[in-house]
């Protein structure tokens, strides 16, 4: 079996590209590579040395918290405050809530003016219910008299009957998160209603609501945490505020920008994205027709539904016309044969493509701003749905096809990683490409040099992505079916090569976009971060290679 050699081939390609001139950016993390594990969960639990190395290399500036993690952290913080200040945990919880769950702020405030803090939070001194020897007490809400054991009170000692307490607390819980700061019913009394009372007095349903609010408060009141915006996801993300890229990736595989909570949009900035999204909402009424998932075949006019990720469409038999989904141009003029890049990537070029049907009308409309927007929107949306499809394909690959492939070609799954890598690269590149269209839309129209350079790089990146996507989507089918498997190794070389070439083109695009945006040297803290990671790596390598003593 000579698969080892082929792996080398693939790596060689990668090495060749990663050492070329483009890679002179001081940025320590190769963004596109890093994102490999953005869209599917790597096995981070592996204990082998390389596993440790990768996790250091891709050190994240954020932590994804599952619901139980959140509870655990909340519980830990409460326990910490409770121990340090020697107060009951329910009081610690109220304190933390008051200070937006910042342990430091609680400490600071408490030790500078304990009385003031106590008053603000409602931790008044314990006072027993006043009662004159077994005499009944009157509840000041229902005005009934009760024996002392049917009376309850907050730490202030103001007596109310348990029924009224239950109704009072329940009303507050059903009014919303304000129940977390509920006070004694006496208008002038600051005493807080503690968790102990909530646990003993209200129904389990209301209690659950209360603890849901308490959990939400831990995330929503905290400056460093936010909920994952994906629908149905219960995770939260803790972010090291002030550190590098805002893109985070949740356990549910949704990637989003921590800063603006839109879908991850690196390398495009938040401002462009929010402008673009606002524009989309405003234009959405005009855009409905674009969202329709079918277009007429340019040859036979039958509607064709796009169900594959790449732009190469083939009409159903008997027509079998091959064309490009975006510009509806003949596919043969898109390929490498013509030596050119995909003409449909560029707006300028699209204008000239008017040689096809209804060209005159289209060219006229191109002057219209809506048409211009449509051009960008269509490509933005197409890449979005392509990405969705690729994501589904990636999961299908990991869960079904990989095993099949391994059996059929007698290759261990560990050596089929290149297929997964290819698909991950496609998913990530579709995402980046999508946002480059929002970026392109806002590039100043008069700045031709900048625009042409950007569109040139975008076109190159897109062309390579199309080749990669086509190879992964169509050519791989041959090896899954009953066809011959003799040239599987050359397929491997091709796919791995395309993956790394595409990665490099997108990296160039990213670097160019960021240069245009800033035209500045990498930020100081980025440099510091790079140094720090290098140092950590050195220590790890020294330790695992047993050369610590020798080197240090």
């Amino acid at each position: 079996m000579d698969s080892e050699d082929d792996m080398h081939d693939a790596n060689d390609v990668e090495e060749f590209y990663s050492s070329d001139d483009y890679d002179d950016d001081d940025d320590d993390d190769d963004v596109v590579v890093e994102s490999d594990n953005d869209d599917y969960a790597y096995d981070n639990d592996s204990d082998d040395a390389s596993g440790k190395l990768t996790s250091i290399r891709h050190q994240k500036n954020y932590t994804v918290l599952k619901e139980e993690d959140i509870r655990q952290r909340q519980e830990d913080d409460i326990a910490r405050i409770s121990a340090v200040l020697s107060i009951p945990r329910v009081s610690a919880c109220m304190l933390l809530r008051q200070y937006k769950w910042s342990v430091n702020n609680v400490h600071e405030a408490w030790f500078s003016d304990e009385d003031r803090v106590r008053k603000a939070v409602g931790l008044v001194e314990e006072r027993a219910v006043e009662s004159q020897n077994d005499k009944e007490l009157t509840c000041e809400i229902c005005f009934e008299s009760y024996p002392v054991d049917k009376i309850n009170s907050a730490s202030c000692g103001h007596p109310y009957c348990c029924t009224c307490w239950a109704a009072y607390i329940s009303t507050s819980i059903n009014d919303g998160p304000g129940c977390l700061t509920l006070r004694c019913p006496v208008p002038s009394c600051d005493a807080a209603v503690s968790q102990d009372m909530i646990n003993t007095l209200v129904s389990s349903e209301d209690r659950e609501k209360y603890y849901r609010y308490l959990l939400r408060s831990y995330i929503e009141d905290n400056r460093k945490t936010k909920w994952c915006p994906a629908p149905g996801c219960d995770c939260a993300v803790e972010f090291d505020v002030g550190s590098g890229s805002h893109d985070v990736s949740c356990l549910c595989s949704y990637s989003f920008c921590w800063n603006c909570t839109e879908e991850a949009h690196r390398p495009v900035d938040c401002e462009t994205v929010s402008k673009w999204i606002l524009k989309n909402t405003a234009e959405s009424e005009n855009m409905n027709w674009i969202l329709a998932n079918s277009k007429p075949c340019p040859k036979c006019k039958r509607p064709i539904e796009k169900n594959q990720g790449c732009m190469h469409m083939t009409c159903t038999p008997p027509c079998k016309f091959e064309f490009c989904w975006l510009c509806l141009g003949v596919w043969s003029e898109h390929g490498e044969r013509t030596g050119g890049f995909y003409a449909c990537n560029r707006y300028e070029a699209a204008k000239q493509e008017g040689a096809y049907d209804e060209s005159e009308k289209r060219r006229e409309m191109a002057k219209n701003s809506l048409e211009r927007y449509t051009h960008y929107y269509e490509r933005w949306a197409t890449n979005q749905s392509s990405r969705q499809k690729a994501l589904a394909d990636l999961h299908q690959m990991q869960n079904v096809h990989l095993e099949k492939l391994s059996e059929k070609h007698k290759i261990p799954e560990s050596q089929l990683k290149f297929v997964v890598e290819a698909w991950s690269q496609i998913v990530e590149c579709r995402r980046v490409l999508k946002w480059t269209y929002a970026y392109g839309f806002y590039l100043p129209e008069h700045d031709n040099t900048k625009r042409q350079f950007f569109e040139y790089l975008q076109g190159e990146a897109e062309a390579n992505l199309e080749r990669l996507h086509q190879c992964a989507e169509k050519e791989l089918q041959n090896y899954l079916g009953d066809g011959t498997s003799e040239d599987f190794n050359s397929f491997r070389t091709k796919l791995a090569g395309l993956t790394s070439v595409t990665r490099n083109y997108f990296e160039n695009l990213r670097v160019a976009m960021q240069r245009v945006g800033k035209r500045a040297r990498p930020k100081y803290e980025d440099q510091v971060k790079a140094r720090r990671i290098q140092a950590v790596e050195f220590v790890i390598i020294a330790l695992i290679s047993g050369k610590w003593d020798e080197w240090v």
Partner: protein
Amino acid sequence: MRIYRRPNHFLQNVQVVAVGSSYLVQSAAYKMQASRARLFKEYKEVQREKSADPDIQLVCDDSNIFKWTALIKGPSETPYEAGVFQLAFSVPEQYPLQPPQVRFLTKIFHPNVHFKTGEICLDILKNAWSPAWTLQSVCRAIIALMAHPEPDSPLNCDSGNLLRSGDIRGFQSMARMYTNLAAMPKKG
């Protein structure tokens, strides 16, 4: 990526005391009969202490314990002095967990009272309500509001603007005029 997978002790740490006794009731079941009972208690209290607060006269509707009216005396040393103002109470079924709705039936020129509808802007009738308040204490709070208007949350903009621009005399003469026009007990 660090992923916490520690078990969840949080809810287990919470000491949940089994509550079998009768006080754990749904607030829905509580409200109707409880509000009636409470209003009846307030009614008896009002009857018993009729002369305790000479400035307030609370009257319950003959056929509906959820409808009340009150006559309150304008506080002294204010433009409302010597006036008698009528208030209408509409008590919700969730009372006293929810506040009663109160409005002036007598026209009054006051920054926190709507000149046309008599609606009152007072925090304890909204978010600062506490079940420890009674209809009687609400009346007292309204009298206090008459003596100390809050021009920053005006329902009557004209009156609020007069006060905020510092035109105390202008405000007082307007308020005085409306007190004379609408709130003076008819003699004879």
